[in-house]
């Protein structure tokens, strides 16, 4: 067996012990897209043979069959010959509008110049002019003729701040869509099962997409939407959610949780995971759950729902992992 090596354009790059294909390529100054380094965002998609099977987890079968794999998750034990490190095809978009819809949160709507098929709740990887990529979840539904993302401004954050300064008419490039956190009508009877949609901050963005998509696809069971925030004034889309509650005549139920601030009206001081547990216990049938946003909270919610009896396969989680800051190279 040959020593672990990455072969690209006829050049052999030996892998250091414990080094991923991504790190090896970057060490040799081969530019490759990447972001989360955790096997989640799929920005680091490369094509080669033999594709390390562990690095194909979560990929669309059609991509896996063509030998695509995630470079950040690939620790080959032999030689891997890469045929492409170009990643997914870029989609050119034009910004249509940008509007503040909450404390530090901007709603961006844009239109793809190329054809773009997605499921609400999936995410795209947005490219900064410097080449950096960050993931943003799609809040729009396919009946709308724009794509919508909700961007929280992170102090000192490269891409979120840049996105929030863009003016209508600006060009941007995205890749994707990626992710498996979306609504499928599923088998017989699944449309009657309860849904639990829970998240904090801009975790509401994919949930807003999934919620409206489920309704459009004829979901009949009760839907519980749980939105959490540190402070009550950080909750957003409250009016739109309230309107949808009325329009669905009780099918949609809202649970708003804020740790600080007013314990008034519909907003409680209950921690989100405790609320999720309580809602689950109150249900007459086994729910399906969608959890999005801050990774630590998503993980807490996942655990709370599982302990409350939700089957692990019925919990879809979409943690918004931050991009690790690159280690300075000498």
């Amino acid at each position, binding site marked *: 067996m040959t020593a672990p090596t990455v072969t690209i354009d006829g050049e052999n790059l030996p892998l250091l012990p414990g080094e991923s294909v991504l790190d090896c390529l970057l060490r040799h100054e081969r530019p490759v897209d990447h972001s989360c380094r955790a096997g989640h965002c799929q920005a680091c998609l490369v094509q080669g043979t033999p594709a390390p099977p562990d690095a194909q987890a979560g990929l669309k079968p059609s991509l896996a069959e063509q030998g695509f794999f995630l470079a950040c998750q690939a620790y080959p034990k032999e030689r891997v010959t890469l045929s492409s490190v170009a990643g997914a095809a870029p989609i050119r978009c034009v910004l249509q509008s940008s509007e503040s819809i909450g404390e530090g949160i901007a709603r961006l709507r844009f239109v793809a110049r190329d054809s773009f098929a997605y499921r609400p709740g999936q995410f795209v990887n947005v490219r900064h002019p410097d080449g950096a990529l960050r993931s943003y979840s799609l809040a729009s539904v396919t009946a709308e003729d724009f794509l919508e993302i909700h961007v929280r401004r992170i102090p000192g954050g490269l891409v979120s701040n840049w996105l929030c300064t863009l003016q209508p008419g600006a060009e941007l490039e995205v890749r994707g869509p990626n992710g498996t956190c979306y609504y499928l009508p599923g088998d017989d009877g699944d449309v009657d099962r309860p849904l639990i949609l829970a998240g904090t901050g801009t975790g509401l963005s994919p949930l807003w997409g999934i919620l409206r998509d489920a309704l459009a696809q004829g979901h009949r069971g009760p839907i519980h939407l749980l939105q959490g925030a540190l402070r009550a004034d950080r909750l957003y889309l409250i009016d739109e959610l309230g309107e949808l509650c009325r329009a669905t005549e009780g099918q949609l139920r809202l649970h708003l949780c804020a740790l600080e601030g007013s314990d008034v009206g519909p907003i409680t001081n209950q921690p989100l995971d405790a609320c999720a547990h309580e809602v689950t216990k109150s249900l007459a049938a086994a729910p399906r759950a969608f959890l999005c946003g801050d990774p630590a909270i998503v*993980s807490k919610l996942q*655990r709370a729902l*599982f*302990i409350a009896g939700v*089957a*692990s*396969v019925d919990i879809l989680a979409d943690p918004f992992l931050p991009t690790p800051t690159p280690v300075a190279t000498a």
Partner: protein
Amino acid sequence: MSSLFERLGGAPAMQAAVDDFYRRILTDDRVAKFFEGVDMDAQIAKQRSFLTFVTGGPAEYSGQDLRQAHKHLVDGGLADEHVDAVVEHLTATLESLGVGQAEVQEVAALAESTRKDVLNR
């Protein structure tokens, strides 16, 4: 004779068994602390290979891997009493699935055989 794994319904049935087993672990204060902050999906995948292994299904399970995976837990205080608790939950899960006593004992014995590696002895 077919393996218990096959008689339980193979891989599809394993999912429900794994959920039951892992839920018992997470709600047991004696052992839950060792699972704080771990990735639940990854953990469930590991429990699935463990259950597949102890019921005689197709799972690759090497003593070396087990040692490696539990090393930091042993450093953090993982001991015999915790392995006892896990075996107890395994037994309870199988009993809840209607597995007979003789077979439960067999599975427990197989789980027991991993104790040395799990505790890095």
